[in-house]
């Protein structure tokens, strides 16, 4: 199962990299979203996927999932959610101000 998830993380990272390198503003935003998804999934996998068991069942539990990675990604998801919202607004404002979403045209000079 860990192997499968690891492959999935790899796919997410490669798609994210592809999107980050495209010219359209919105695709870059989607790239960052997928990148953080990949990172979150990685944290979960790195804690070991204890399938079908609850995080905490008292001290005598025979098997349990590691609760710490779950707490970590919960925090990280909230943060990346806020960041994405802000980035989307910024993207929209940039598009409105420059009338283009092509990053080649947004390369820009300083003396304008």
């Amino acid at each position, binding site marked *: 199962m860990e192997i499968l998830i690891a492959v999935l993380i790899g796919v997410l990272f490669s798609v994210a990299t592809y999107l980050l390198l495209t010219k359209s503003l919105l695709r870059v935003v989607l790239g960052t979203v997928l*990148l953080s998804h990949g*990172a979150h999934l*990685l944290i979960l996998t790195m804690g070991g996927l204890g399938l079908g068991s609850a995080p905490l069942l008292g001290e005598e539990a025979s098997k349990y999932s590691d609760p710490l*990675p779950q707490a*970590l990604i919960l925090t990280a998801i909230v943060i990346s959610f806020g960041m994405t919202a802000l*980035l989307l607004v910024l993207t929209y404002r*940039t598009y409105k101000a*420059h009338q283009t979403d092509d990053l080649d045209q*947004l390369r820009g000079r300083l003396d304008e």
Partner: protein
Amino acid sequence: MSNLLVIPFLLPMLVGAVLIFFAKQHRLQRIIAGTAGIALFVYAAFLVYIVYQTKEKMIILEVGNWDAPFGIVLVGDMLSVLMVLMSSLVGLVCLFYAFKTIHSEREKYYFYSFFFFLLTGVNGAFLTGDLFNLFVFFEVTLISSYVLIANGGKKIQLRESFKYVVMNMVASAFFLVGAAYLYATTGTLNMADLGNRVATMDQQGVLNVIAIIFLFVFGAKGALFPLYFWLPKSYYGPPAVITALFGALLTKVGLYSLIRTFTLIFNQQPQFTHSIILLLAGLTMIFGVFGALSKFDIKQIIIYQIISQVGFMIMGLGVFSTSALAGSVYYITHDMIVKVALFFIVGIIIRVTGTGDIRKMSGLLKTHPMLGWLFFIAAMSLVGIPPLSGFFGKFALVVGGLDQGQYLIVAVALIVSLLNLFSMLRIFMNVFWGEKNSTTVALTNKQTFPLLRPVIPLIVLTIALGLGAEPAFQYVIGAAEQLMNPEHYINVILP
């Protein structure tokens, strides 16, 4: 155990939240912000005194009374409280400069709130002893910086802040990746516990990979050589006070984290990791100063000087000896003071002449002597001319480098210093010397005095830090000894 460590980030967070409610009332907002800035600075000075008085020279707080490796710990050792003191000082002077310069439209859109949220993140990042908590405070800092850098909504600001945000989000994702790998290899995220377990593990290959991931993350945030490309343009857009704040604080948070992790956790194979850092330090210095020499815009020159100075600051980490690290810590302290002073002065120069191009300015020394000499002192301190603070930082770095036989980096540092001198003198000669040209003077000499008021304490401080280098060095050598002997740090947290 001491609750003292919570205040440096709790106070700015509460003040920032309160200020949201008074966003439209300028006077009240300034009174609250000014009082809080002063209080924070006084408190930070008190904290340094407290830490210096204790026997272990550090205080810790186990938050929520959870024992150390399980809960989050806050750690105030000599380096982190010094950094908190400096960031509070930078915050204080930036506030008073902002009162005079910031446009009321920006004030209305929560400038002061996010200013304090930024300080929350910065102080928290300095004080935390948990890797994931460091990530969270990084994000607090970054999201406030995104708002501040785009605040005002000029075309160039929007365009460049988009790139800044994307760059930082990628770096943050890799921070998570690094944290995940570390957790998988060691089973902990408490920095002291990490340092402890890493020392007893024989998985050097994996740890080196993780070390390089963290080098990438902190290098991107601290503007190291191949990763500084986002910095010059994105710092150019916002007003001088925000650039000063970012130049003094944001890169330093990255560098502080780099120093912390590479002395505490990734200290097992310095011949691999620290020689990469040394190489990057040299390249950062060189490329930064070349950037500064290639520009004619005064703000751009100083922004490239940020990059060049970053090289000096991590040189001590790359050399990895007590005296070199002491030089690094001293240099970071000095750089925070001087960089803010320079950005303030540059902001005033641009206001006075109405242009940023040094080829179009001339003869300001005749009309604005005060401005000219303050700039001269700050510039000489940046370059490292003897009685000023920059000299002693570079001196310690060079001596530390020679002791360890790193002759190449010492040579690079000295040559880059000469080029720095050239680039600063080029500004001074173009802007202040020569005949007065026809550009209209927007502010008379008298009118610049209120703007110069926040600069003067900084200039006094860089002179004082230079003349009082002896006691200052006693402190930073103490901090460097703590960094070089992480066992002490680990023992205090995990008794």
